[in-house]
């Protein structure tokens, strides 16, 4: 084997190893990452009591209430499958924070089952569509009322009856 071919073999082998390492890291990050907990995991007791953790999920529609005298805000985090946790915070909520949108809050569960958040962050998706255009598109995609003539009705009734 020529020295250059040896070096090519070395480089290819190294690239293969690096690729395998990369794939393994990616796979590990998908499955074993505890960046945040979903409400379901918290309710099942997967989070040790008293630890600070991040709670992720949607802000339930109509659940956001603000105290009239203090900065305190309360809202319910849901996974839309019936698992819900009430969050209490006296921090400023971010600009993008909205009901029915994703949020990530960091804090601790108290004895009454409330999540006391010391930080509330808003999450957003990677869809960069203008607000107006999406409404137009939605209208275009709703099915128009079907034109009905005699033959159609005949077919329909024929099939249904």
């Amino acid at each position, binding site marked *: 084997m020529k020295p250059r071919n040896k070096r090519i073999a070395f480089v290819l082998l190294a690239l293969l190893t*690096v690729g395998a390492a990369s794939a393994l890291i990616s796979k590990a990050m*998908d499955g074993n990452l505890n960046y945040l907990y979903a409400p379901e995991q918290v309710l099942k007791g997967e989070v040790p009591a008293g630890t600070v953790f991040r709670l992720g999920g949607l802000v339930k529609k109509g659940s956001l209430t603000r105290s009239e005298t203090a900065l305190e805000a309360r809202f319910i985090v849901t996974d839309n499958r019936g698992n819900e946790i009430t969050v209490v915070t006296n921090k400023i909520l*971010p*600009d*993008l924070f909205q009901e029915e949108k994703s949020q*990530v809050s960091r804090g601790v569960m108290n004895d009454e089952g409330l999540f006391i958040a010391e930080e509330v962050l*808003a*999450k*957003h998706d990677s*869809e960069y569509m203008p607000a107006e255009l999406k409404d137009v598109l939605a209208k275009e995609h709703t099915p128009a009322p079907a034109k009905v003539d005699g033959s159609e009705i005949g077919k329909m009734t024929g099939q249904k009856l």
Partner: protein
Amino acid sequence: MKINWFKYAATINFYALAGRVIPFFWVAAVILITIGLYWGFFKTPDSLDNGMKEYYRIIFVHLGSVWMAMWLYIMMVFWALVGLVFNTKLSYMMASATSITGALLTVVALATGAIWGKTSWGTWWDWDPKLTTFLILLFIYIGYIALQSAIDDTRRSDKASAVLALVGLALVPVIYSAVNCPDPTQCSSLHQESSMKNIEPNIMKGIIFTTLGFWMYSFATILMRVRNIILQRERNTNWVSKLKEVN
């Protein structure tokens, strides 16, 4: 006709070639970035469906620098590997020159990301998987640069840093794929997924133009730096001492 592919692997020829093409890359960079920013500022919607207001326009700098920071890392590894295999001096110099621009764009990406994060998420920084892996990319760039300058013998420093760059390559796909789950409400992350599916066409145009502009900027600065490295490393040769700009 036999083409001599290695003509421009000779530093003396490449030095002259780079000097001729650098102005074109600068012009292309300025034009593309100007078009991209103009389009981004004046032809795009003022507010987005996901609730973001004008501040989302930092995307035109953020995305371009993120992509180029990752792309330049791949190019740096490419040149380092060519150096390892063919023992060409110039490819190591290319890798070395690429590392500085790459590190710089990584800083730009992190900074613009922090500003965007503060306005949209509500925080400058969070230990989200994507953010954390990108910070590690900066550390690897810095590690490469440090290793390169820590060893005086350039032949040794080139080889050692090339191996480091190669090992760090494992990180690039991880950054890209860090938690790209299909359902965003179930994602174990704060950063949105890397998806180009639903982007308004004018926003897309701005992103493409600024990204290409950053690419041209990278070519220009990398070639300028390579010319400096050539002069530095070959300062004792005959041809360098005869150059007009040296005397």
